[in-house]
């Protein structure tokens, strides 16, 4: 007799193999109050073609949890070329500590060269971070995701009220799915708090980025990340110079749902 989880995994695999859409919303409801380990296990066992995105920060807990489920799990990091030396050292420590299949994804060299030639090395302070992040992060990420059916991120609701408050533990990836390629995104830590993440790190002796000891909470690229003070919002440590109002291309009075091509 098959257990509930195994039956679910088989049905997801069948649906996927036969090209039928997996009912992501039902799955999200079913798993909304499960532990991160349960959600991770579902991701790794339901999809053969799945990888974990690791930023070099406290999402290391995902690597620790996943390597207990599937030791040779695939893990990738976006090597923007602008990370802190501490982060590079940490990525390597994680790579050595766990038997994972680790990849560092690099941006398209020609695109970086063109950006630097036209706008210099710090264009994001004037133009906003979208162009540089687009080239150094989204380009290589999109390329990698095209060959995956599912990916796992360390996003948590408590990281940003503005952009994370409603993330589900599993969702259809709206940004990277295409009409030809449906991509599933798992966020096993969605409902965990920072305190729970750090409890896990301490109790399981998980290695962490030394920048955390110097007041860095959210860790990204060196020029775009800063330490924050106690009780500051985590996201205040990233792209702090940008005016939130200027990021908006929304139509504020339209009061409508999104419909995009």
């Amino acid at each position: 007799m098959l257990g509930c989880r195994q039956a679910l995994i088989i049905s997801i695999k069948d649906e996927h193999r036969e090209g039928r859409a997996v009912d992501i919303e039902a799955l999200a409801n079913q798993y909304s109050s499960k532990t991160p380990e349960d959600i991770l296990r579902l991701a790794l066992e339901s999809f053969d073609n799945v990888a974990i995105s690791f930023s070099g920060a406290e999402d290391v807990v995902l690597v620790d949890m996943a390597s207990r489920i599937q030791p040779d799990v695939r893990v990738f990091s976006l090597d923007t070329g602008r990370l802190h030396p501490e982060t590079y050292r940490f990525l390597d420590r994680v790579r050595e500590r766990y038997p994972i299949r680790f990849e560092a994804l690099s941006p398209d060299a020609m695109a970086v060269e063109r950006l630097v030639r036209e706008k210099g090395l710090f264009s994001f302070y004037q133009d906003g971070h979208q162009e540089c992040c687009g080239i150094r992060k989204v380009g290589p990420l999109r390329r990698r995701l095209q060959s995956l059916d599912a990916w796992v991120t360390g996003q948590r609701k408590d990281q940003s009220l503005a952009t994370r408050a409603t993330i589900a533990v599993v969702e259809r990836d709206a940004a990277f799915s295409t009409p030809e390629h449906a991509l599933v995104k798992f966020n096993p830590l969605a409902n965990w708090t920072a305190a729970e993440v750090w409890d896990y790190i301490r109790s399981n002796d998980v290695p962490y980025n030394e920048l955390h000891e110097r007041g860095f909470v959210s860790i990204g690229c060196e020029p775009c990340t800063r330490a924050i003070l106690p009780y500051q919002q985590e996201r205040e440590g990233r792209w702090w110079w940008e005016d939130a109002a200027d990021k908006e291309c929304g139509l504020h009075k339209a009061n409508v749902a999104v419909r995009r091509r």
Partner: protein
Amino acid sequence: MHITLVKKIKADGSPCRKCAEVVDRLERSQLLGRIDRVVVADERDPDSEGMQLAGRYNVDWAPFFIVEDDSGGERIYTSFFRFLKEVLGQNPRQEEETTEMMRQNPDLDFL
């Protein structure tokens, strides 16, 4: 085919920067002539034609394009680069597309 571009005036009366960039890009590529109509969505005036169109087509993003084909079918594009590829047959640079993805998906700030 009939193409309408809807661009935005912000609530403080200033023009939307992204809309200006899109118009500039079309002009530089000598494609502005392919746009049949430009309509303004003025955030200060919910009755402005562009705001009405946004409401009718359930769009909350500017600029956007309404493409009517000869058989009367309509397609809405909020992705400028997808519009460039699919409607105007252009081949934009990957970095133009990824910048737009960052702008349209603020939740990608977790990367």
